């Protein structure tokens, strides 16, 4: 590397560049070769297609929600319909999009390669996981077309068990099954990371993306079953009249919330940790520098996972829990926020003394850092007991979680997709268009959700189909923002699809990145490595990379 180029994109000469003759995509042909594949990379692609579908479905619901909220009157849809809209928006976005987003696509694709393995430990279970996911998705769609479900994504009892006659059981079954897809993904990752690392790939040589997914996997394996049992009990209560949560039979409806949030708080970290992993990779690559405080970032992932199990009650502060235990949970909530701060600062300092370029993934990473900081800090507002009283169940929460989930995880996901797109398909996405869409979604995002913080403090409750007229102005801003945001999210699908055929050929390592995945051909072979690598260097070792590229041109195949 001479280091004089202003960009590190290192495309092969386009006149002579060729795609590798044999890769995981063209290795076998036909639909069946995809539907029965055991290849983690193909399963990742299957997942990518499915969750993109669900994202847009959820996005359309979001669009309808925002359209309805354009005016204070309940004029676009009936209130039942509105309730179904946000319930399905939440259910689809969380269980069918965000939870599997990074792990099941990028994680599936990359983790084995990053640690030098030929596949995940259990390829068949990996495939099974996708089928379970699809079954769950189809059931949710069934619930949708046969009349919808209007519980909200939180399924609060006794509302969900006794007072609604929509398809609660179908939707709950769908989530239950999709939950097992998530469990199996996590299980597969943990076993793979423990058992399949290449010789020399010690724990502290693993890329931080692997660490982050490892931490998220622990949460998936230990948290999801508790969601499963609480949904089973809801379903049994509806169908057979069991009385575990029913206050008229002596049950405690709060018990349901305890069980639900025991999963769903850790779930928010399932949703953010893999995204944080993406950010580590991207920041390091485009500043050409080892991540500042590698161990601190690695351990903070594990700390988030561990502490994540101790704070769920902060979703129930005003729900009638004991005030003493609210104190304990509030304190623990403050503790769990610290590791996230550690990560943010470590990323910022990775930039110091780097040699920074600003490709699209880097823009998304910057968006992540800014938006996640805002989203995370507003989480601290909510974790402070007295403050939460005023803010809870208002648009402040809606803004908080969209900042962390959309501004955080979705940005990270898009950044990751762009970053590894050349590896996945061997072709580059169009750079300037993608920069445009990154900027568009950043602006649109803030326009959509910043006004919601204000709305929330003003007191506008969430899940409201109609609202007092004085809130209109801010709602109009928000809806306008959502339109911009929608465009920002629609663009990537179009140009990424285009690039599959017409993008510039990427070559093995267009970013000059250090990960093992960049040392093999793009798209990779079905077996990833022709020979298992022996790892002698740490993660993000740019000197090793420079020496390596000096000596030979890397080709595999």
């Amino acid at each position, binding site marked *: 590397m001479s280091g004089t180029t202003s960009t590190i994109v290192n495309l092969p000469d386009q006149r002579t560049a060729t795609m590798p003759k044999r890769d995981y995509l063209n290795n076998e042909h036909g639909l069946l070769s995809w539907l029965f594949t055991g290849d983690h990379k193909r399963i990742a692609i299957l997942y990518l297609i499915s969750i993109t579908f669900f994202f847009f479905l959820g996005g359309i619901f979001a669009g309808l929600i925002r359209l309805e909220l354009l005016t204070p009157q309940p004029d676009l849809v009936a209130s039942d319909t509105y309730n179904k809209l946000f319930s399905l928006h939440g259910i689809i976005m969380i269980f069918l999009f965000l939870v599997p987003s990074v792990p099941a696509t990028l994680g599936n694709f990359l983790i084995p390669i990053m640690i030098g393995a030929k596949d995940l430990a259990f390829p068949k279970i990996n495939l099974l996981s996708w089928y379970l996911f699809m079954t769950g998705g189809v059931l949710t769609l069934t619930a949708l077309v046969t009349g919808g479900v209007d519980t909200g994504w939180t399924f609060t009892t006794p509302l969900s068990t006794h007072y609604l006659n929509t398809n609660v059981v179908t939707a709950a079954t769908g989530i239950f099954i999709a939950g097992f897809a998530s469990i199996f993904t996590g299980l597969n990752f943990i076993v*793979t990371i423990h058992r399949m690392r290449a010789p020399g790939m010690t724990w502290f040589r693993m890329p931080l993306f692997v660490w982050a997914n490892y931490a998220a996997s622990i949460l998936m394996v230990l948290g999801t079953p508790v969601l499963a049992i609480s949904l089973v009990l809801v379903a049994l209560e509806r169908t057979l009249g069991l009385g575990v949560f029913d206050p008229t039979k002596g049950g405690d409806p709060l018990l349901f919330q305890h069980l639900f949030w025991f999963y769903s708080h850790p779930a928010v970290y399932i949703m953010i940790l893999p995204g944080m992993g993406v950010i580590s990779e991207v920041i390091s690559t485009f500043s050409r520098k080892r991540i500042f405080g590698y161990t601190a970032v690695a351990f903070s992932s594990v700390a988030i996972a561990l502490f994540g199990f101790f704070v769920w009650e902060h979703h129930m502060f005003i729900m009638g829990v004991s005030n003493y235990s609210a104190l304990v949970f509030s304190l623990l909530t403050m503790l769990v926020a610290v590791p996230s701060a550690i990560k943010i600062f470590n990323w910022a300092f990775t930039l110091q003394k780097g040699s920074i370029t600003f490709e699209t993934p880097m823009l998304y990473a910057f968006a992540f850092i800014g938006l996640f900081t805002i989203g995370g800090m507003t989480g601290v507002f909510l974790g402070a007991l007295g403050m939460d009283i005023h803010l809870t169940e208002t648009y402040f929460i809606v803004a908080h979680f969209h900042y962390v989930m959309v501004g955080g995880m979705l940005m990270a996901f898009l950044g990751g997709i762009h970053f590894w797109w050349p590896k996945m398909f061997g072709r580059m996405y169009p750079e300037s268009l993608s920069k445009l869409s990154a900027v568009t979604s950043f602006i649109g995002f803030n326009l959509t959700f910043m006004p919601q913080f204000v709305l929330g403090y003003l007191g506008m409750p969430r899940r409201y189909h109609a609202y007092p007229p004085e809130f209109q102005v801010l709602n109009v801003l928000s809806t306008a923002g959502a339109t911009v945001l929608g465009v920002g999210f629609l663009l990537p699908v179009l140009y990424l699809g285009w690039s599959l055929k017409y993008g510039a050929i990427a070559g093995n390592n267009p970013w000059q990145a250090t990960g093992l995945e960049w040392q093999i051909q793009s798209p990779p072979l079905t077996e990833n490595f022709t*020979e298992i690598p022996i790892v002698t260097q740490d993660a993000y070792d740019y000197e090793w990379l420079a020496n390596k590229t000096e000596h030979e041109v890397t080709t595999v195949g």
Partner: protein
Amino acid sequence: MDNALVASHAHTHEEEHEHVALPQHCHHFETEQQQREAGTFGMWLFLLTEIMFFGGLFFAYLLYRNWYHDAFVAASNQLSIKLGAINTAVLIGSGYFMALGVWAAEVRKKGLLVLFLVITTVLGFVFLGIKYVEYHEKWEKHHIPGEHFDVSEFVNPQAYGLKETPLAPDMAQKTQVFFSLYFAMTGMHALHMIIGIGLLFWLIWRANRGEFSSGYVAPIENFGLYWHFVDIVWIFLFPLLYLINRHPGS
């Protein structure tokens, strides 16, 4: 090819594995040791999810038992301790033969393996049969939660020839919580048994073809883990549901 990156002793499987190349060996694993350990580890992780799954139910039980102790005692006394104890023994026996089955596979005794698996299955069916008898009794007594739930037996035990202390009507209502949990817990447990028996049929069929008597024991071993876990759940369910308070008097 980049030499720094590639194992100098890198072995491609066919050549280097002179020892055994079992047909079950998957190619993405370096060695069979690795494959086997991964399998066991994966199975254990799966069992962790089961711990948490039943954990939610156990917590619900713990909570309501403390809230409605009298109702739980009275309702629990409706369960047949005899059937419960027999079932415990049956299930432990089934676990015992499962363990023997693992051993038989390890020492490659095909006949014994099949025999042990069959006994395991039979005992599993016995357990479910007894469970059915118990459920049926609850049905007849209207002790299934829901619309037809009937508390008269608890309010007025003398009329039913029981020596129990009668419960106040409000407490008697809470027996429904007990039975809700009873059915949720034993039902989930029975569901696990049914899935397990399904798998057992499949394993017996494969064992009979000799698949597990040439050193490839992982499926048997891992299924064994599952089966024993289901045992353990019952080992806790039995005292919690049947033995809360059996001594006469209080």
